[in-house]
């Protein structure tokens, strides 16, 4: 295969991948339910109903009180103070993430008025590089604060919501997959992995709403 054909084949493959992901997206967006298949069995997650959301909110409040009562859990603010004593300044890291945004926007404005393809490519590369650096720093702060009460509550809420809305198709009916949250937590299946991935498509993150 000569070079041109290789390039064409690569482009065709890329286009195909894009069509596939767009088609998949069309499927995800058509409804507030998402069906998926694991080992020939069909599962779905759906947006929780109003009553279910109220129930989730009650459970979340109880979990919040539990975390508050546990002395090994700290709020984000306390973690930041603890890290500062160890020489890690999270506030400074977050300021740097914001500063990156300012730098990115300055390059974006230059890109907006760029016409020459060479300039366009150079500016795009510059933006990608700044975005990578911003993302790495942002991930670092997220990791450092992973054990904060706010973050733990967010993880818990997402897990509990997934437990509430995860169903399996049996004949024409949809049955709840797990009877209890402890069964759900004890299970380590690919179904849960997939459901976790999709839940953020349905429900907006509850961060900061835990109080």
């Amino acid at each position, binding site marked *: 295969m000569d070079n041109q054909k290789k390039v064409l084949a690569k482009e065709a493959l890329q286009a195909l991948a*894009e069509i596939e992901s767009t088609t*998949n997206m069309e499927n*995800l967006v058509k409804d507030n339910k998402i069906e998926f298949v694991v080992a020939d069995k069909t599962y779905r997650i759906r947006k929780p109903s109003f009553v279910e959301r109220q129930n989730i909110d009650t459970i979340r409040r109880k979990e919040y009180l539990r975390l508050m009562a546990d002395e090994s859990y700290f709020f984000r603010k306390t973690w930041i103070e603890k890290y500062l004593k160890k020489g890690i300044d999270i506030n400074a890291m977050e300021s740097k993430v914001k500063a990156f945004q300012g730098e990115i926007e300055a390059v*974006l404005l230059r*890109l*907006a*008025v760029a016409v020459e393809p060479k300039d366009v490519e150079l500016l795009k590369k510059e933006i990608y590089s700044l975005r990578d650096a911003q993302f790495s720093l942002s991930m670092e702060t997220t990791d450092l604060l992973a054990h904060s009460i706010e973050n733990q509550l967010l993880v818990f809420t997402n897990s509990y919501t997934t437990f509430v809305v995860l169903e399996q198709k049996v004949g024409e009916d949809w049955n709840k997959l797990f009877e209890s949250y402890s069964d759900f937590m004890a299970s380590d299946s690919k179904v849960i992995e997939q459901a976790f991935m999709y839940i953020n498509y349905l429900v907006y993150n509850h961060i900061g709403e835990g109080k």
Partner: protein
Amino acid sequence: MRANPLQSLARSNVAQTVYRHVKEIGSIRLFNNDTDLSHLQILYLYYLSLYESLYTDLSMQEEYLTQEVIDDEIRVEAYLLYRKVNRKNKQKPNNKKSIIDNAGEGSLIFRRKSK
């Protein structure tokens, strides 16, 4: 960088045509559910209206906007920021004037009904 499939879908001719018809003809539905939209559906609606505004700008031959820009997500982001900054700058000196102008004519005047 990998393209955002939701954005690609909203940008497509088919999606834009459907969106236009949904807005014009009430009986056409965009989603199976009419209420209780998912996070993804809300994002999709945002992208649909965003690309609709870009295609409008394109038809108005707005500066620095081409089909090539619309097809490139990062260039779209750049154009949107440029448009926002530009609009803000255009509004600044005229702000006071437009308020004064509006007060002169065409504004609503509420009067107490005479007995």
